């Protein structure tokens, strides 16, 4: 459905089967499908984990945690059943890559689940797909049925005498459910209110059993790692940042699309070469490097940074989810901050006060500010409110709301000042779309 793009700098590992009809199990088998899981069936669990550790694969959901390490936290012995849970809730603004994997290569996700299960000693996996992605739920249902029909799943997978079941599940609209503990609540049939940690899901997860939770892209990378070897995958990226990842280019860019590039790829090249630059000859103003929860970069910063987890963490920032959003010089940063806050206010589950009240106050203040009713002291107040959310909320959604806000106030303070004293928005003096319809949720 969604258009595919291509660029010579791409290294197609995870996207290698896109557009090749691999939703059909026959075609998937022709394209080396289900070889990795058969190899893994011959391996010791620790060897699988070590291979994944060697690959330097880090979570593609956004936090960038080492996948092999996460798997190694699952206790070997457990009284309760262990589970693998695929996070296909993909709702981070700017991010649209898991959709392509599920659309073009659903069996790779199933294979990844089984391999993860073999590594940690689980026999059951659940693939949770956001409710809006109904056509992908249907694709996954068919893929699972086909895998069962061939004996790749079920009581005796590949004649190994081992049982493994993978089931599909769907959400019904909620960003917060992408947070791993809220995801488990949702899968258990509840509201997506996060759980307190510790204990971490690897120890106490679904129905109290140890649970590995990974993003769709993370798990889709695993069969490739098993087949090509962890070292080869690691070598595609930079030290400690193994492999490639899907970057979703969007916003003011000539060639938007999802591109698979090695970790450490220069952001400047990503924008000007892969993405073909900014439309209408305009200048770059800002870049959201990895979904709306990340620190927003100025053009100068963006042009110097390489896209790997450690480059960003050294700056105290985050690489995020792969959603790279490009903003041209005519974008109003106040309005941008407002739209982001409106989102977090809408998605806050309301469980803890700093996030519930903070996002609400911030949205109201930004609405007033953008429509010209702001006071000078509001600028510091916005930053103060956001800073007081940081690290003080029950789950990272509160941080996610504060982070872009703080960076926008810090880096584009002048744009806030330009909105003072009833002045119209400098980027939209006619006020054509400045009066954002305020959602009434």
């Amino acid at each position, binding site marked *: 459905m969604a258009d595919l793009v291509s660029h010579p700098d791409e290294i197609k590992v995870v996207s290698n089967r896109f557009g090749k009809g691999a939703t059909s199990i026959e075609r998937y088998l022709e394209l080396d499908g289900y070889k990795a899981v058969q190899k893994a069936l011959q391996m010791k669990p620790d060897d699988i984990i070590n291979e994944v550790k060697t690959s330097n694969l880090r979570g593609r959901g956004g936090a960038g945690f080492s996948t092999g390490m996460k798997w190694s936290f699952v206790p070997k012995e457990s009284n309760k059943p262990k589970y693998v849970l695929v996070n296909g809730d993909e709702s981070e603004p700017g991010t649209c890559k898991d959709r392509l994997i599920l659309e073009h290569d659903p069996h790779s996700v199933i294979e990844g689940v089984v391999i993860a299960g073999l590594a940690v000693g689980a026999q059951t996996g659940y693939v949770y797909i956001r409710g809006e992605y109904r056509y992908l739920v249907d694709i996954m249902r068919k893929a699972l049925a086909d895998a069962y029909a061939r004996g790749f799943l079920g009581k005796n997978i590949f004649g190994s005498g081992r049982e493994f*079941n993978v089931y599909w599940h769907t959400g019904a609209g909620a960003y917060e459910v992408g947070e791993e503990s809220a995801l488990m609540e949702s899968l258990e049939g*509840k509201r997506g209110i996060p759980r307190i940690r510790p204990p971490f899901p690897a120890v106490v997860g679904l129905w109290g059993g140890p649970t590995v939770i990974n993003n769709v892209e993370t798990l889709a990378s695993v069969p490739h790692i098993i087949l090509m070897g962890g070292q080869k995958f690691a070598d595609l990226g930079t030290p400690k940042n193994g492999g490639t990842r899907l970057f979703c280019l969007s916003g003011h860019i000539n060639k938007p699309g999802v591109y698979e590039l090695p970790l450490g790829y220069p952001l400047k090249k990503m924008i000007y070469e892969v993405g073909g630059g900014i439309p209408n000859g305009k200048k770059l103003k800002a870049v959201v490097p990895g979904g709306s929860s990340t620190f927003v970069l100025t053009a100068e910063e963006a042009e110097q940074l390489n896209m790997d987890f450690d480059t960003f963490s050294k700056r105290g920032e985050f690489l995020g989810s792969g959603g790279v959003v490009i903003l041209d010089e005519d974008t109003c940063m106040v309005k941008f901050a407002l739209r982001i806050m409106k989102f977090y206010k809408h998605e806050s589950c309301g469980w803890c006060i700093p996030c519930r009240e903070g996002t609400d106050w911030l949205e109201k203040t930004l609405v007033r500010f953008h429509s010209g009713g702001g006071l000078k002291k509001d600028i510091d107040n916005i930053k103060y409110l956001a800073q007081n959310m940081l690290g003080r909320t029950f789950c990272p959604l509160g941080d996610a709301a504060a982070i872009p806000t703080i960076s926008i106030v810090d880096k584009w303070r002048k744009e806030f000042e330009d909105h003072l004293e009833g002045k119209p928005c400098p980027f939209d003096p006619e006020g054509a779309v400045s009066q954002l319809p305020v959602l009434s949720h």
Partner: protein
Amino acid sequence: MVVSEKLDRFFDEKIKEYPTRRSFLVPMLLYTQDEIGYVTDEAIAYLAKKTDLTELEVRNVISYYSLLHTKPMGKYHVQVCTNISCMLRGGEEVFDHCRQKLGIGHKQKTADGVFSLEEVECIGACSWAPAIQVNYDFHENLTPEKLDKVLDDYRKKN
């Protein structure tokens, strides 16, 4: 029965895939809504029974999820994303255009019940923005002309 026998059987099969009966509740709510239009009082009673929950517990779950509705929506529910990637490529204009063309606002329904409209958060079409979803169908890379055609086609389909 509130839902078709086929759907009821499907629910019973799926429930077996989880250790607790309530686990499949969220998908059941959504599939029930898809079949009967919205989550009715009868549907709540039916699903409460199926999951061994009280109706209040089921209502509590419903109110959390934005795709679930306890009032009838239009036959074609037009969901316009105005989140960042779409906003930068005209998502708000798309929403305004829909409002004008359909003559309704956020979370409203046309008098004939054919369309309803909702401004929504990111639907995972950021690289193909601006985008909308009508029921579950995506319409991407929209221009005003393309949008008119999409809406006209739905009207004709009705």
